[in-house]
């Protein structure tokens, strides 16, 4: 009776057998983010090791791409070494400030999207801890 339904099932079955080429692991070491402010965690902390990442991404000379500063509440691309992210990006929502979690997500995902490199899916960064 039901061709449509069977074919949907077939497609699923097929997809499950596709050998999964995992793009993530390659070249990324074990390190993870350490941002206790964001606890309690629903997902494992994102996989991130500062130096290997930047080497791979060619960011060695370009710290301000991430570590920006601010002037009159506006983001400026000027390296500000001393300033931890959480000092401005509070965990709680505040007017005119991007909260911490969103700041991280936008920082990473937007760049990965633009470069079409690096993970964009939840679990590709938040890899469950073995």
């Amino acid at each position, binding site marked *: *009776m*039901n061709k*449509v*339904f069977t074919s*949907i*099932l077939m497609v*699923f079955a097929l*997809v*499950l057998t*596709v050998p*999964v*080429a*995992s*793009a*993530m692991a390659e070249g990324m070491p074990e390190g993870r983010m350490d941002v206790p402010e964001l606890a309690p965690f*629903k*997902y494992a902390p994102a996989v991130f090791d500062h130096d290997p990442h930047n080497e791979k991404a060619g960011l060695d000379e370009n710290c301000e791409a991430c570590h920006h500063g601010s002037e009159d509440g506006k983001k400026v691309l000027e390296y500000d070494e001393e300033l931890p992210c959480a000092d401005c990006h509070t965990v709680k*929502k505040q007017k005119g400030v*991007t*909260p911490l*979690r*969103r700041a991280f*997500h*936008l920082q990473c*995902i937007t760049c*990965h*999207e633009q470069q*079409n*490199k*690096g*993970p*964009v*899916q*939840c*679990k*590709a960064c938040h890899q*469950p801890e073995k």
Partner: protein
Amino acid sequence: MNSLYNFAVGPLAWAAFIILAVTAVWRLWSMYTLAKQKDASSVAYMSWKFSLRSIANWLIPYKSLGWKTNPVLTAVTFVFHICFVVLVIFVTPHQILLENAFGITYPTLPTAAADALTLIVIACCCYFVYRRVTNKTVRFVTRTNDWVSLGLVAAPFVTAILGSWGVGGEIMPLLHVLTAEALIVAIPFTRLAHILFALFTRAYIGSEFGGVRHCKDW
């Protein structure tokens, strides 16, 4: 892979929601104008009081004759519908996507709870399938549309739980998003249109029973 996924959670998601919004409004609006034009002698009896009375009473499990007579289905359908709505809103990844896009934050379900509810929804869908095959009446009246709708609803949950278990790596979340978007777009055009119309048919029959028939409709 990245670009396909980015496209699916970005432009395609926008497209799905916009298509849903536009077609849903269009379907409701054209139904409303058709009712005014052709069913004036029924619309005349519409009443807020009796509409809400009927909706409220049917939202109580085992209150109506229908719920009482079909106890298992009633339990399953209430659980299913509630879990559906709760999951769509309160799973963490959805909130995060909303947060990234619009800055919306609210509390979400722990992953274990989301997994459990997702499995419950899948179990409910299995029961629907089982009933559709084994119940003589339901089998007698089932059309392709019913299977398609059920499949459309089940697919995002199956892919979500598989994704949560890490099965299929990066393909599963992509499939999840695509199947969910298929579901969203299909709502106004399949049996899932009951999501749009059920409140209004209930309101109408409630008004009839309250206003014309002076008795309850549950």
